[in-house]
């Protein structure tokens, strides 16, 4: 079991703290043949369990890159990343995959449901990959679909649903494994305002019940649901407090 050995080695670097997420000087550089782009520059960040954080900033500021790294979809170029007290910045894809499927749920702007699978099967998928038995899976899926008030649609296919309904399915899928953290990447970006509000209420509700949420958003309205706003510009955290930001400045940044 290669994984276990590495786990122990890494443990020496692990730091006990109350943070769910802590980054130290997190930097991500993209290189092509000719250009070197620094997407993230020395980000230091802590997220406590039960927090609802929004990451904001203009296009190209590094929001998604940060979210990918926090979601263990990508590794940083340099710096350290502690997730539940494990230093994970040098994990291999296999290790990240293992960690990811047990701890993190994802919600995307474009839902990323699989068109060929029914609602039920889409939500069930993470449980299949965790190796949970079919009866157990069924119970969990039905429960979470009920929770998201989408259970009447469980036999439908994604393309037969409205955008809001699709996003509720996506949230259900993120929740079904009961993850410690939900990462939402512009969850309302493809929705009209009614459906957008619906989804945001849902996330807020989850957060109230104890789920940690990190959300990337363009929308000031959405950000207001979060307890904390992390503002990025050109790969750096510029400010971290919603209350300190004045409306005019915000408008400028949002262009």
């Amino acid at each position: 079991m290669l994984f276990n050995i590495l786990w122990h080695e890494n443990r020496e670097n692990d730091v006990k703290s109350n943070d769910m997420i802590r980054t130290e000087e997190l930097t991500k550089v993209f290189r092509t043949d000719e250009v070197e782009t620094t997407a993230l520059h020395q980000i230091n960040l802590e997220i406590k369990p039960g927090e609802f954080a929004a990451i904001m900033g203009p296009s190209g500021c590094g929001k998604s890159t940060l979210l990918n790294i926090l979601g263990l979809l990508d590794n940083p170029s340099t710096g350290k990343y502690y997730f539940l007290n494990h230093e994970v910045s040098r994990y291999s894809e296999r290790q990240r995959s293992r960690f990811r499927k047990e701890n993190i749920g994802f919600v995307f702007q474009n839902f990323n449901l699989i068109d060929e699978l029914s609602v039920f099967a889409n939500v069930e998928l993470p449980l299949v990959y965790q190796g949970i038995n079919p009866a157990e899976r069924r119970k969990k899926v039905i429960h979470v679909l009920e929770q998201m008030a989408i259970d009447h649609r469980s036999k439908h296919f994604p393309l037969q649903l409205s955008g809001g309904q699709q996003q509720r399915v996506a949230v259900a899928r993120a929740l079904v494994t009961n993850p410690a953290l939900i990462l939402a990447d512009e969850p309302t970006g493809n929705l009209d305002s009614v459906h957008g509000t619906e989804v945001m209420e849902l996330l807020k509700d989850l957060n109230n019940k104890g789920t940690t949420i990190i959300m990337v958003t363009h929308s000031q309205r959405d950000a207001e649901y979060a307890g904390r706003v992390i503002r990025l510009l050109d790969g750096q955290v510029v400010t971290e407090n919603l209350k300190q930001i004045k409306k005019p400045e915000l408008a400028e940044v949002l262009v």
Partner: protein
Amino acid sequence: MIKNYLISAWRNIRKQRFYALLNLLGLSLGLSAALFIMLYLHDELQYDRHHAKHEQIYRVNSHFKIGDMDDRFAIAALPIGPSFKLEFPEVIEMTRLTPAEDLLLRPANRDYYERHIFFADSTVFDIFTHDFINGNPKNALNEPNSIVLSASLANKFFGNQNPVGQLIESGLNKPLKVTAVISDLPLNSHMRYEGLVSMLTISEGNAAEFNSFEPNAFWNIGVYTFVLLNENSSLKALEQKFPAFYDKYMKSLGDQINASFLPDLMPLTDIHLHSDYESDFATGNMAYIYIFGAVGLFMLLLAAINYMNMATARSVKRAREVGIRKVAGAQREQLIAQFFTESFLMVFLSALLATALVNALLPDFNELANKSIPYSAIFEPKLIIGIVIILAFTALLSGSYPAMFLSSFKPVTVLRGSLTSSGKSSHLLRRLLVVFQFAIATMLMIGTFVVHEQLQFLKAKDLGFERENRLVLQLQDTTFRNKLEPFRNAILQNPAISHVSNANGIPGQTTMKLVMQLESEEGWNTQAVMLALTDYDYLNTFGIKLIQGRDFDRNMGTDKQEAAIVNEAFIKQFGWENDPLGKKILIGADSKGEGGRPLKVIGVVADYHFQSLHNPIEPYLITMSENPRHLLTISFQADKSNEVIDFVNQQWDLFASGKPFDYKILDQILAENYEAESRINVIFRISTLFTIFIALIGLLGLSSYVAEQKTKEIGIRKILGASIFNLLRMLFAELGLLIGIAFLIAVPLAWWRIQIWLESSFEYHIDLQPDSFILAGLIAFGAGLLTMSFHLIRVINSNPVEAIKYE
């Protein structure tokens, strides 16, 4: 407009280089395979058509019914030709040919055994068309002892000088005078003679026998007889006269020997492919023509399918273009024309590549197929028309589905970008096409394996006699035959040589069939039976097993005249199972037992394959020859072949006074019986490889499409925690299913067709075993898997973040 179509077609091809390349490769392979097969078929179908009057030339075949035997021969009796000319006004001319078996020719004091010299009536040039380099067709064979040489034989004998007028010493009584030189016969002549000797050379001395119209002469077949019919004569009307002809010339003797006879006329151009007559030179087989025709068509179809498949697979990418063109005012017809322009351009480019490929590979193909097809054959008008039809067909077929499908897109839908996949129906179609391709590839693979197995079976089958370590010498020189006994004694001194036998036939080569009367309770029973004329050591030399009675015995003085050994089939067929020994046989007697040579059965041998495995084991009779015959077989110790050949060669030189030492190994002679099948096997194997290759090219294109389509899904699944194994299983499950369905379709069809082939072509064949089928299935699956992996592994290993990026 057309220019615009061409420009955008060319740009599209260039833009999608990978797919264009795959298409080009697939189409040009398919086209070149189709071209090769077309050339092959054309060549096969052109047999003997180079004779200007080929439509009026017929061969007179003989159809005998004697006793239980119903036999058809390609040869006829000597008087048939002349009597036909005499009796039937439809017959303008006739000519007879008969091979001068391994004639010894000695031009300029060098000895050659020539295997392709025929005796021929002087009228041969009135019927057949030959290109005369020297000499005159009118009188070339008018005199006895005249010989006409082919260009290559003339060159072999006399170099570049004009040989007309030269004398050639020969195994015949008098020297032969060269009277003419003709161009070599095309390879697609069913009878390829390299020299013709005037028939008068052999008829001169025994004119009475040659010109006899006695009933006896009509029952003794031996010459290939061709007639030239009047242009307007009706074949049917002519054939209706045959019964009367029989009554007039042959019935009297026929009734005496309980036999009947009818000639039949076979068009010259049918001989190669349609003849299954005994003693024929024909090597073609119409069944193979159909099989190869189908294979060629299949390959084209597969290549066209690849094109359709990839074109529709790319449709999402093309949809936007279609939308924009429609918004810009394109009519549907114009878009259809646009897509057809692309397929025509693609097929045209492939055709260029294919003709280059055919040009490069034609020599190898000719060697494999034993043909001499020139590259220029492609430019024959008939083939050009065929090629144009094939190209148009391929382009139309390839372009049809994409043209109809892509042009049907609604601009609003495609521009809004909501055309997410290319539709359920096209998805189903693509699956069907993959199934179709793999079913064909699997069938061909199964066919290849079974043909191979059958050939191995033929090579290894226990024939009932010893086939290995037997040397066969040709004794054409009659003076040598007189020294046979001392020669035999000399070579038997070598301890490695165990037996020597002289006979007129060896197992595996057909000998002669004679009418004979067999003893029965109701009197004499007339039958036609195959027989060999041998000496005392025949059974021992070939290791033929005696199961009753005894072998010929030097101590029994009467054996040489009256002993006969028969096979099991003989005693079964004629009801002699209980008591065969001592039974009487009369050779050449009439049905009352008058005349003929009396024989008595002294032994019975276990059935062995005295003919090739194409034929069943018939009744067979072995009796002793009074004079030495033309074949000498020497059996020797297993590992001594080189030593024995050297030794026999030395002894030969001592006895044969300078005649060339001409030998073969029995195994080689037997293998020649299956040369046609071996050749077919090779061509079959190559076709199969081509087909699989084309199918895989298609799969490669398809898998690249699937990879593209599934990139996002794979990304999502990876994010949700799918392992590589999970993903592989998911992606290959469908392919496995499709190949599985193809396999289930291929198996019964292949089984059915192969069973027909085995049963119709071979009296002795393998039983179909599942292993060939399973192997073909596994290869199809393995190759499919490997091809798919090429693209999918890359996708699976890619970073999922890339895959789910915002669209």
